[in-house]
């Protein structure tokens, strides 16, 4: 590992959905320009954890954060109530579990984040849309039909379009919430290649239900269970010589 700068740090993070506590005392560092993966059985809180990073939980009532997620370099606690979630979402973008393009043109899907920021200069938008589509490895497939509806694309293409949408605003971190769980194997491998390519320029946090995927693409892996972080280490170490018995049982398929 060449780069070991911390980009974000979860410190004593607790999260409650109303009376239900979903995260218990999580401590995880996210390193810059690395892929950090979170694995664990369904309902272990990995998606809940991911969605703390762009304050998605603020959209719904009765959710409560405790503790800190420190964003570097400015050392700011992004889950503090006096931080505007909109500012955080402008800096940390997200790719969802199911491809969710807007029912608009391919171009407008990618340009959306910039339009939200008030960009209207056509030349700049054109340029950003192209770079983002190239960055998401979908430019060649859509360059001739940039104004047709995003729904005309296949599932895998739609997901790469969503990645382009997330890239267009030059985020510091991209959150991936099981981005390949709705895709077939060949579309999945394209997305995986893309993620490994993207980590040269951006920090990535990915939740996956697929252990092989975590092993293939991540630098660090965290294993979560019942809202707790059981183990966090270099991916190689987690998958070869985990220190916790639970981790070993999970990755060898004894439960989950």
């Amino acid at each position: 590992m060449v780069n070991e700068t911390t980009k974000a740090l979860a410190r004593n993070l607790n999260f409650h959905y109303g009376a239900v506590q979903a995260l218990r005392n999580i401590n995880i560092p996210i390193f810059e320009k690395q892929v950090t993966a979170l694995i664990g059985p369904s309902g272990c809180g990995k998606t809940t954890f991911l969605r703390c990073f762009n304050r998605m939980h603020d959209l719904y009532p009765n959710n409560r954060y405790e503790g800190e997620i420190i964003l570097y370099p400015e050392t700011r606690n992004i889950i503090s109530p006096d931080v505007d979630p909109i500012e955080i979402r402008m800096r940390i973008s997200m790719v969802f579990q199911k491809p969710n393009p807007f029912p608009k043109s391919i171009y407008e899907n990618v340009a959306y984040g910039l339009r939200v920021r008030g960009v209207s200069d056509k030349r700049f938008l054109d340029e950003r849309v192209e770079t983002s589509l190239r960055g998401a490895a979908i430019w060649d497939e859509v360059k001739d039909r940039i104004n047709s509806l995003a729904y005309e694309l296949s599932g895998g293409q739609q997901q790469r379009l969503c990645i382009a949408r997330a890239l267009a605003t030059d985020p510091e971190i991209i959150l991936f919430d099981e981005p390949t769980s709705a895709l077939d194997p060949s579309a999945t491998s394209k997305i995986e290649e893309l993620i490994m390519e993207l980590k040269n320029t951006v920090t990535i946090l990915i939740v996956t239900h697929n252990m092989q995927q975590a092993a293939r693409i991540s630098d660090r892996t965290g294993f979560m269970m019942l809202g707790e972080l059981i183990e966090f280490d270099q991916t190689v170490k987690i998958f070869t010589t985990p220190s916790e018995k639970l981790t070993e049982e999970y990755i060898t398929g004894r439960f989950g």
Partner: protein
Amino acid sequence: MNDLKQRIAYNKRWDTAFMIAGLLSTLVGFFLLTALMIDLFMDGAERLSYTFLTSFPSRFPEKAGILSAWVGSFLVLLVTVFAAIPIGIAAGIYLEEYARKNWITNFIELNIVNLAGVPSIVYGLLAVGMFVQIMKLGESILTGGLTLGLLILPMVIMATRESIRAIPTMIREASYATGATKWQTVRWHILPYSMGGILTGIIIGLSRAIGETAPIITVGALTFIAFLPTSPISYEFPFFSVKWFMDPFTVVPIQMFNWVSRPQQAFQVNAAAAGIILMVMTLLMNGIAIYIRYRFRKRIKW
């Protein structure tokens, strides 16, 4: 083996029995509507002509027309559209996207649902009290339009909410995740994607409003109007006028009511002819609603 065949034959008899009963029930509705239309046409078709549409009511049935009535209906609906649509859509969006879910919003929601079931004459009474007596708007087109606006407001709100609810959460989240505010999400996603359903609801509401008689009589629309309201377009700056807001008016169903209550047979024919016009207007609006729904649904599939 034979037993099984018998059993199947027995089971299928019930199948056939219900099919016939169902078909008959379906045809009842269809035939009644057709019979109604044919009856209306047989009674009224002879009076249908260009002059019928361009003449004022008259003491002589063969000279009487519905000019003031359909112009009145049109202008009243115009006021209704501009009153009910912005308020209804805004309220629907607020309730779905902004309002916190608590007992106050639940109470408001319950009331809106109930308002849709209030008899239209009650709206007429409310309008007399509010628009005519308190706000002193007179027995005018404005009063009539606002009254019908009140009447269809719950329908517009409910149509708005229904079609907003059909938008999947993940589309909203995709928008918020890029850093959009609520208003940006509403403006660029919620409104455009729900517009088909909202417009359909509005037009269905309007086609109910156009046939309403009771509340319009209550607010004091006249049954005999032999002049047109002030023209909305003027030849001097600023080229439009709102004087017609305050003019007295009548509408097609009131004109019909007036003719039906006369003893002469010739006026009954006039009433049927006006009925045809009213039916055509309503069917036309429903047709537009179906077309709009089709156009919007074609682009969007969740």
